[in-house]
C-alpha cells in the first residue's frame, strides 16, 4: 500500500519536472528578449566572432532541442544562467535558499503552533471568549494580504519570518479546530468521557493520536502557503531569499531564473506533500 503510494508520488514528481521543464523551456524560448545578445554590439568582435555568437543562438531556436538541453542541464544540476544578475542560477539559489528555508521553518512552525494552540484553547480548554477571539483573529489574518502583514512587521521592526507564521496560522487554526471538534464528537471519545477518563488523557490518547496523521497532512498545505507568502514578505522586509529573487526576476523579465525557481519550489512542495501523504497512509488502518 505504502510502496504503491510512494511510486505514485514519485511518478508525479517526475511528471512535474518533465512538464514543468517543458513549459519553462517554452516560456523562456518564447519570452520577450530571447535571442537578443548584447555581445553583438561589442565593436571589438570581428565578423567571425559575431557569426559564432549567432550560430550558438540559432542552435537554441528549436524548442525541442532547447528543452532537451535544458533537461540535460537540470540532470547535471545546471539550472542555467541568470540574464539580469549575470550569474549561474544554481549559485544564486545556493546563496539564497538557506535563508528562505530558515524563514519558512520558523514561519510554518510558528503558524502551526499558534493555530493549533488556539484550536486547543477553544475546543479542549474552552477558555471564556477564546472561540470569539480566535475566530476574529484568524478571520482578520485571512482578510489581510500577505504584503500588508509584511508591512506591519516592517513598521514594528519585527523579523519577517513571523509574518509567514501569521499567514499560515488562520488556515491551520480552522482545519485543526474542525478536526478536534469532530474528534470530540466521535463515539469512542463520548464513551471515554462517560467512563470518567481524565480530560488530559482523552485529549492525548483518544483525540490527538487518531487525529495525528490528518494534522501531519497540514504540513504540505502550510509549506505551500508559506512559499507563496514568502515573496511579498521577503520583498517588503528586504530579506535576500528566494522569494525576493523571484520578484526581481519577474521585474527584470529574467525568465530562466524565474522558471527554475518556480520548478524548484514546486518540487519542494511536492516532496513535503509526499511525506505528509505517506505519514497519513502509514497510520490509516488497512481495510
Amino acid at each position: 500500500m505504502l510502496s504503491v503510494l510512494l511510486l505514485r508520488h514519485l511518478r508525479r514528481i517526475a511528471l512535474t519536472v518533465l512538464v514543468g521543464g517543458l513549459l519553462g523551456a517554452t516560456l523562456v524560448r518564447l519570452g520577450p528578449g530571447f535571442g537578443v545578445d548584447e555581445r553583438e554590439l561589442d565593436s571589438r568582435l570581428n565578423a567571425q566572432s559575431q557569426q559564432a555568437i549567432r550560430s550558438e543562438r540559432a542552435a537554441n531556436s528549436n524548442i525541442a532541442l532547447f528543452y532537451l538541453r535544458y533537461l540535460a542541464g537540470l540532470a547535471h544540476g545546471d539550472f542555467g544562467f541568470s540574464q539580469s544578475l549575470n550569474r549561474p542560477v544554481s549559485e544564486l539559489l545556493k546563496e539564497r535558499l538557506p535563508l528562505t528555508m530558515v524563514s519558512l521553518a520558523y514561519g510554518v512552525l510558528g503558524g502551526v503552533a499558534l493555530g493549533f494552540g488556539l484550536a486547543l484553547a477553544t475546543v479542549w480548554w474552552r477558555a471564556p471568549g477564546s472561540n470569539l477571539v480566535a475566530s476574529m483573529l484568524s478571520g482578520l489574518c485571512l482578510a489581510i494580504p500577505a504584503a500588508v502583514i509584511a508591512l506591519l512587521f516592517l513598521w514594528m521592526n519585527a523579523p519577517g519570518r513571523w509574518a509567514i507564521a501569521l499567514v499560515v496560522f488562520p488556515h491551520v487554526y480552522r482545519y485543526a479546530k474542525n478536526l478536534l471538534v469532530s474528534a470530540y464528537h466521535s463515539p469512542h471519545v463520548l464513551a471515554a468521557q462517560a467512563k470518567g477518563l481524565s480530560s488530559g488523557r482523552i485529549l492525548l490518547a483518544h483525540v490527538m493520536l487518531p487525529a495525528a496523521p490528518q494534522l501531519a497532512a497540514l504540513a504540505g498545505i502550510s509549506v505551500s502557503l508559506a512559499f507563496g507568502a514568502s515573496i511579498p514578505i521577503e520583498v517588503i522586509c528586504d530579506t535576500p531569499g528566494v522569494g525576493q529573487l523571484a520578484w526581481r526576476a519577474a521585474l527584470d523579465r529574467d525568465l530562466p531564473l524565474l522558471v527554475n525557481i518556480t520548478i524548484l519550489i514546486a518540487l519542494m512542495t511536492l516532496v513535503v506533500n509526499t511525506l505528509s501523504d505517506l505519514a497519513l497512509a502509514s497510520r490509516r488502518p488497512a481495510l
Partner: protein
Amino acid sequence: MTRAQKAALLVLALAALASLLAGWLASSSYSEQFRDAISAPPSARFPLGTDELGRDRFARLLYGTRISLLLAPAAALLSTLIAALLGGTAGYLGGRWERAVTTGIDLFLSLPWLFLLLAVRALLPLNTSPLASVVITFLLLGCLGWASPARMIRAGTRTLLNSDYLVQARASGITAARLFWRHLLPNLRPILLAQFWVSIPVFILSEANLGLLGLGVSEPLPSWGAMLRELENYTAVLRNPWMLAPAVLLIAVVSSLQLLLRTEDCNPC
C-alpha cells in the same frame, strides 16, 4: 442569516454602491493632478487628501474599488467556468481524461500561486497600456485559479453520478444530454456557486499582493493593490493615517465576503 452576516452584506452593498456612484461622489477624476495641492491633508474638497502627485485619494479609492469589485468576480467566473469544464468532464467521462485532469490539478496545486502568477506575468511585455494591465492581471487570476475549484467539481460530479437516482436514471435509458442538463447541472449548481464566491476574496487578495509588488494594475489606473504601495512610506503613514483607507476598505470587504461564505467544513484551502 446571523446579525454579523447582515452587517457584512451591508458593508458589501455600501462598497459596491459607492464604487458604482464614483463619478457622482468624487469631485474629480482618479488621474487628475492638482499641482496646487500635492500631499494635501483631508478637506471638504479632498475627503482623503491627495497623493504625492496631487491626485484625489477619495476618487482613486472609489474607482479602485470599482475595478476590484467588478473584475474579481469576473475572474472568479472565468476560473469557475474553466474548472466546471475540466472538473465536470473529468468526473463525468472518467477514465484517461479524468486521470489527465487530476494530474493537471495536482501539478497546478503543487505550484505556489504567487510564484506561478509572477512567472506568467513576467512573460508579458512591459509596455502594456493601463487598461490592458487590468484585463491581463484579472485574466491571469481567472486562468490560473481553476485547479482548486476543479477538484471540488470533479469530486461533486463523481458523487452525483454514483448517487442512487442517477444510477436509476441511467438504467432507465436516459440520454446523455438529458442526464447532463436535467439532472447533473442543476445539482452541481450549489458547488459551482460556492466555488465562484470562494474565489472572489482570493482574487482580491492576490491582486492586492501583485499590486503592492508592482506587478498588478499599471498607473494611472487605481486599484487597491496599487494604492497600498503608498503604505511602504511608514513616516508618511504615521503623519497621514488616512492613507490607510484602502487597506481598511480591502480588509472590510474581504472579511465581509468571508463572513458571508463561512462554513464549518474541513477544507483547509
